[in-house]
C-alpha cells in the first residue's frame, strides 16, 4: 500500500533523508529505529506532508496514488495518520469538537454522511474506554495542559476514531509509564487489521514486545541501512547502534 522509492528530503539546505526505500503492504507493521537525529521524524513528517521539508528526489505512493502531490488534509482523507512525537496544543479549540470536525471532514471527502454531535458521542464512547481517556480531557482544549502521557494517549485515541489506512507512530511510547504503554499498545493492536499498515518509530524494544512488528529497519544518517525481523530489535537493545554504524562505514 505504501511505496517509498529513493526518497531524498532536506530542511533549510540540509539534506536529511538521503535515499529511503520502503514498502509497506496491507496488514504489516514496520518498526523504524535509529540514533537521535538520524531522520526518523523527518520521514514521518514528509509522509504527512509537512511543508518545512522539501522533497528533492524520489517518490511516495499510497495505493498507487502520488502522495507528494497531495496537501496534508488530502493525505489524511486518503488515510494517512501521523501520531506526532510532540502533539500540538491548540488553546481555545475543544478536543471533542476538533475531532468531530476532523472525522466529518474525512467522511465528507469520502462522500459519507457527516455525524451529528449525538451520533459522534455514541461512536467514540467505546474508543474512549479503550484508551482509558478521562472524559474531562474531551472537553478541554486540544492537548492544552495535558500531561505527556495524556497527549500520547490522545493521539492514539484520535487514530482509533479516524480509522486511517496508514498509521505512522512517531515515538508514541516515549514518556509513557508502564501501564499507559500497555494501554496504548493495546489500542494500537486493536486497530491492526488486514487492510491497515503501520510504521512505528521507536527507540525501545520494549514497545515491540507489545506491538510485534513484521519488520525492523534501522535508520542511520538518513538511510535505512539494515532491515530484519523482530529479533533485530533485541539485538539493537543489547548492542546499541555502534556495530551497525561500523558496518555502514566499512561498506562505504
Amino acid at each position, binding site marked *: 500500500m505504501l511505496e517509498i522509492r529513493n526518497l531524498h528530503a532536506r530542511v533549510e539546505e540540509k539534506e536529511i533523508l538521503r535515499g529511503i526505500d520502503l514498502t509497506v503492504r496491507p496488514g504489516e507493521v514496520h518498526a523504524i529505529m535509529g540514533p537521535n537525529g538520524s531522520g526518523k521524524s523527518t520521514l514521518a513528517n514528509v509522509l*504527512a506532508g509537512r*511543508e518545512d521539508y522539501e522533497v528533492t528526489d524520489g517518490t511516495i505512493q499510497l495505493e498507487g496514488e502520488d502522495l507528494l502531490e497531495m496537501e496534508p*488534509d488530502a*493525505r489524511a482523507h486518503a488515510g494517512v*495518520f501521523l501520531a506526532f512525537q510532540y502533539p500540538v496544543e*491548540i488553546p*481555545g*479549540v475543544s478536543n471533542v469538537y476538533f475531532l468531530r470536525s*476532523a472525522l466529518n471532514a474525512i467522511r465528507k471527502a469520502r462522500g459519507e454522511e457527516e455525524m451529528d454531535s449525538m451520533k459522534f458521542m455514541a461512536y467514540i464512547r467505546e474508543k474512549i474506554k479503550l484508551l482509558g481517556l478521562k472524559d474531562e480531557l474531551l472537553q478541554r482544549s486540544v492537548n492544552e495542559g495535558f500531561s505527556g502521557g495524556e497527549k500520547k494517549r490522545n493521539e492514539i485515541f484520535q487514530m482509533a476514531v479516524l480509522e486511517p489506512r496508514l498509521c505512522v507512530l512517531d515515538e508514541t511510547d516515549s514518556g509513557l509509564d508502564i501501564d499507559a504503554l500497555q494501554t496504548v499498545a493495546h489500542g494500537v493492536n486493536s486497530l491492526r487489521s488486514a487492510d491497515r499498515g503501520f510504521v512505528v518509530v521507536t527507540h525501545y524494544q520494549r514497545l515491540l514486545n507489545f506491538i510485534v512488528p513484521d519488520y525492523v529497519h534501522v535508520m542511520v544518517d538518513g538511510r535505512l541501512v539494515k532491515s530484519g525481523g523482530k529479533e533485530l530489535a533485541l539485538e539493537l537493545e543489547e548492542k546499541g547502534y555502534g556495530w551497525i554504524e561500523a558496518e555502514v562505514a566499512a561498506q562505504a
Partner: protein
Amino acid sequence: MSAVLTRYETTWPNVEAVAQAHIGEGPLWLRNLRSRGLRVFQELGIPTPKVEEWKYTPLRDIAERKWELAEPGPAWFEPALPSFVEGAVRIVLVNGRFDANLSDFPRLPGLTVSPIREALTDDANPVSAVLGTIARIEKHPFGALATALFEDGVYVHLATGSVIESLIEIVHVTSGEGGVCAPRVLIVAEKDSVAKIVEVYVTDGAADSLTLPVTEVIVERGANLEHVRVQDEATTNAHIALWETRQAEGSEYRSYNVAFGGRLARTDQGIDLQGEHCITRLDGVVAATGNQLIDNHTRLDHALPNCNSFEIYKQVIDDEATVVFNGQIFVHAHAQKTDAKQTNQALLMSPKATINSKPQLEIFADDVKCTHGATVGQLEDLPLFYMRQRGIPQEMAESLLVYAFAAEVLELISVDEVKRDLEARLDRKLGTEPLR
C-alpha cells in the same frame, strides 16, 4: 512657518443649516443642548491626523463630502433585520428614527421604552433631565454634531429593582446615500435593576451614509447591566460613534464592543466609575478585512476606590485592513485598591494588515493593581498543520483558530443566541465555512 493644520477647511452647509434651524425649536433644555452641540462641532471642526486623538482615523474624504441630513428610511427591509431571541423586547430605529411598526415590545413590569421624540416637546421630563449629561461631546466633534442634529431615538428605563428577563434588542438601520444620521440611545438602569441589552448597527444594503450614534447609559447603585454593541454595517458606510456610561456604587456593567463593519468605523467608548465597588467589563472583538479601517478608543475613569475593571480586545485583521486600538485608563489619586486589567491582542492574517495599538495608563493612586499587555501575532503553522493532518481543510482550520482567538471574549457573552449569531457573523465576515 506654517500653522499646523488641525481641522479640514471644509464646512457641511446643508447639515449645519438643519442644525441651525433646530436651535430655534422646542423647549429651552433642548435648544440649549442642541446649540451646545453645534457650537462644539463648529469650534472643533473635522480633525486632521495632526490631532493626537484622531491621528489614525483618516477623515479627509468624509470632511470633503457634502452631506445632507438623512431622509426617513424605508418601512420594511429585505433581507429581514437581525433578530436574536424569539420574544425579545425589540426596538428598531431607521436612520435614527424610532419605527413603531418594526418594533415589538410587550409591556413588562419595570420596563419603559419610548421614542425620544416624545420627550422633545416637554419642558421637564425624565429624558430632559439626563440626555446629553453623560456623553462627553466637548472632545468629540461627531458626537457634538449628532447632539445638534438628533430628532429622535430611544429611551429605555429600568425601574428600581426590576429584573428584565427578556433580552432587549435595539436594531439600528442606516439606509441611503450621502445622509448623516444621528441615532440616539438613552438607557437608565435604576437602583438594583437587572437587564441584558444588545444594540446592533446594520445598513440597508450597501448604504453609503454616515452613522453618528450617541449612546448614553446610566447604571445606578447596585444595578447590573450586560450591554453588547454590534456594529456590522456594510463596508460602504462610515460609522463614528460615541458611547458613554456612568456607573454608581456597587453596580456591574459588562460591555462588549463588536466591530465588524464600516469602511471607516470609529467608536469612542467611555466609562466613568463614580461609586465604589463597581465591576466593569469593556471587551472588544474586532474583525477587519478588505480596506476597512476600524478604530476603537476606550476610556475608563476610576474616580473612586475599590473598583475592578477588565478589558480584553481581540482583533482579527486581514487583507489591507487597519485596526486602531487606544485604551486609556485613568486611576485618580483617591481611587485606591483599584484593580484594572487591560489586554489587547491582534491577529494579522495577511502581510498588509495593520494594527496600531496604544495602551495609555495614567495612575495617580499608589495602592492599586493595574496591568496591561499587548500582543501581535499570526496564525501559527504548527497548529494548522496538526489540524490539516487530521483531515481538516486549510480554510476550516484557519476559521477554528480565529474563532479560538476571539472566543475568550465571545464566550463571556451570556446570551447564547447572541453568541451564536456573532460566531456566524465572524465566519461570514472572514469568508470561512460555518462549522459550529
